[in-house]
């Protein structure tokens, strides 16, 4: 499915099904916005995404799966725009609509991981979980996390360093602690001690909180 209009209709049907169990065909057509057109509903029926019985619209299994992915992309995009990029709400809605059409599976998974597998969008609606979420559910921990979340003995790669202090960044980078470097958390108490290559480095909690790592 590549046509944005068709995707919009599937999305709309999903949203309406969330509101009330049945979707009236007339209401659906009334709520459609361009580029979605009434004629497209026919295309969807022909391609086997939806079934129309009397006045009601139902998903087929294939349609359900696709709609689910579209919704997931849309709402993850909203989360990303809202939480990370701090975009204003009206821009967020329109941008998220754009996003959902070009995000591929891999990028969606990355965003989901980055955000820590969120369960709901900024408007409070549920985000359908993907495979990565189920995997994360078993492991409980998000993939990218502050160094402070590691258990001693864990090996991890530094993903990024976020700090307000310029000097801290200089000090870390001149020691060679930079994104991409593999480390092992040696101990958490009384202070954090990490092993980087053949160097052991002790650092305090404030710094450890600024270093985001990804388990390897």
């Amino acid at each position, binding site marked *: 499915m590549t046509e944005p209009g068709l995707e919009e209709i599937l999305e709309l049907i999903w949203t309406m099904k969330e509101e009330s169990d049945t979707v009236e065909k007339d209401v659906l057509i009334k709520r459609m916005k361009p580029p979605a057109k009434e004629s497209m509903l026919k295309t969807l029926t022909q391609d086997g995404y939806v079934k129309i019985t009397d006045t009601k619209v139902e998903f087929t299994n294939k349609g359900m799966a696709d709609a689910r992915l579209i919704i997931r992309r849309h709402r993850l995009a909203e989360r990303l725009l809202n939480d990370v990029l701090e975009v204003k709400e009206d821009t967020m809605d329109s941008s998220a609509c754009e996003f959902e059409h070009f995000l591929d599976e891999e990028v969606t998974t990355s965003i989901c991981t980055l955000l820590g597998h969120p369960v709901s969008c900024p408007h409070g609606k549920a985000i359908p979980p993907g495979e990565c979420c189920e995997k994360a559910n078993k492991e409980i921990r998000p993939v990218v996390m502050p160094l402070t979340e590691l258990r001693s003995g864990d090996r991890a790669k530094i993903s990024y360093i976020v700090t307000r202090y310029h000097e801290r960044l200089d*000090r*870390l980078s001149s*020691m*060679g602690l930079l994104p991409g470097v593999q480390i092992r958390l040696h101990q958490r108490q009384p202070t954090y001690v990490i092993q980087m*290559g053949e160097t052991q480095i002790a*650092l305090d909690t404030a710094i450890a909180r600024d270093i985001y790592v990804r388990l390897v």
Partner: protein
Amino acid sequence: MFETGVSAFKVALVGNPNVGKSVIFGLLTGKYVTVSNYPGTTVEVSKGICKGLDGRIEIVDTPGANSLIPLSEDELVARDMLLEDYEKRVIQVVDAKNLRRGLLITTQLAEMGLPVILTLNMWDELLDRGMNIDVHALQETLNIPIIKTIATHRVGINALLSSISSTGVPNLHIDYGNAIEEGILKVQKILNGDTAVNTRSLAIMLLSGDEALEEKLRDKLPSGSLDECHRIRDNIQKQFSNPLSYVINIKRANFVNALVERVCTTVSKEGKTHPFIRGVLFYFLVPLAAFFIGYKLATLSMSLISSRLQPESFMNFIIPIAVGGVTSIWFSLYLYLREYKERSTISEILGRITMHPVAAFPILITILWIVYKLVGEFGAGTCVDFFENKVFGSSLTPSGGFDIYISIPFIKKIYNITHVNFQGFNYYCGLLAQKIISKDSIVFELFLNEQSGLIQVGLTYAIAIVFPIVGFFFLAFGIMEDSGYLPRLAVMVDKVFKRIGLNGKAVLPMVLGLGCDTMATLTTRILNTKKERIIATLLLALAIPCSAQLGVISGVLGKISGIYFAIYVFVIGTQLLFVGYLSSKVLPGTPSDFLMEIPPFRMPKLSNIFIKTFYRVHWFLKEAVPLFMLGTLALFVATKLGVLSLIERIGAPVTKNFLGLPVETTHGFILGFLRRDYGAVSIFKVLEEKGGDKGINPEQLLVSLVVITLFIPCLANFLVMIKEQGAKNAFLMFAFILPYSILIGGILRVILQQF
């Protein structure tokens, strides 16, 4: 001492902290500079002439630096050396197993356009870890001489010497991307004219926001050009979300990573320790040592409440053994479960367990106890006694000689070998002098008077009392330094030190201060911020007794009762924390990050420890003996002129009424300014005399020793404080410490009277 014109060029030793620059410096020049196993041993530049080469080539040892854009005082010292205006070459010392971090500096040296020899030191440790470096490929890429060395075993030094003449600028060029490269060109144009160092490197430093460099350039450049640089920097910064220096560092790191990947290989690591040694360690040494630790902890804590215990009771015997057993089982099980299967080497295990959140503390207490036994009891007790009473003795009464014997521990048998009929150095001096002059004459009194003679008191105190204590302290301290234990202490105390405005790193000057506050005040350079340096300097001057003083104090308090020594430690400790806490609140500035490299645990080399102890004791005696003599002379003159009794009268309201001490102790406090240990000894003598047959009054002793410990620092320390912190700060600290120490003494006296 060395005219720059004489040597053709200088050779600077540069590198990351704790990679062995000072060892190589010693080997090249034959001059000893302190070598230890922790980053920050060298905080000053040392110079020497290279042996074994024609012509006078001056070698310069610099403090370790992780980056040539300085973030602390010692890094600044190293960097400024490289910016100086004369022809120089660089021996860059790299820890071979940490090639990546070393090459980060090489790229900066290459940018500065300096000729470099790369020394891959600790080659043995690299091989031990199953790593290898393709030196040939690296040499080909960089196009400079690369020498493999094991400096502590003198391996590779000759090769290093012979390649000094064939240095070359490393063939490295990092492209920082269009935006930054354009900026570099623009800044280079502004800098045009200053040709001492490659302008490209200066431009990169300025773009990285190097404030120290700006200060240096301010006078050399036409006004306004620095502002122009700022504008250029701010313009480039707009294109990046991260600070420019970070962007530059990342570019550098990426470049180095690619290079390291090409030349460095790691094969899977195998446990190197022989199975038998491992067996002995895990099944015998660890349980035994752990039992000892537990046993000692129990007896130590019981001795503190000894007055409440019944002597010879069954519990006295059973509790330490039970505690020892529990500790033994706990340590052994822990180590066995965690380490045995991991095939770690012994030094790795020791390195880990000495930072372990729980296990490290009993180990620390045991180490302190061993140091106390060595320095406080053997050094300050037995040795001082022997030197003071037997070797030096008194000018008027013979000491009676001493026995040489062998004592066998446990069965308590003593075999006398011979009796030495030596009546004491001072006694013979006295006899000799009395052949010429009467013992009541002023000259005899000047040198041999029992209270203030230059030889009888000054020389005897300096050598007989200070020498053994300081010597044994530095011996113990050297072992801690060289094994790598000290930086692990920093890990343990970081949380506490945070409360007093410092971080764990400050434990290094603090512990060194227990050896000599003067040396330690210099070491505060390794701290990152001005605020930390001021707090550390103040606390060193106020609450850290030096080894000589601590030795004397623990000796005299130990003679009375362990509980008084415990109170002493408690009072001084709380003052350290309290004043530290207050000053961290009062002084402006932000706390700095605790980010510190922990060196691997290494087997200390005995030869280095002895040489180091020798040089430190030598330094100490050179410093102490003249001051002791001067102090004694001042005391003698003051006594004869009656000034002393005048000062005593003036000080009487404070000493007598407020502190409750005999007025004679006043001159002890005055002497304390010359040497604090000297003051402590002299107060002790006064109190002993006053006590007469009843013995010394322990409360008076405790109060006076607390005051003399907190009291103003000795003259040498004060001079270093002025040098490091400026006269204003030094005098402000002085003005705070003087009344504060007396106030605390007064409060302590009142509290003690309640019991």
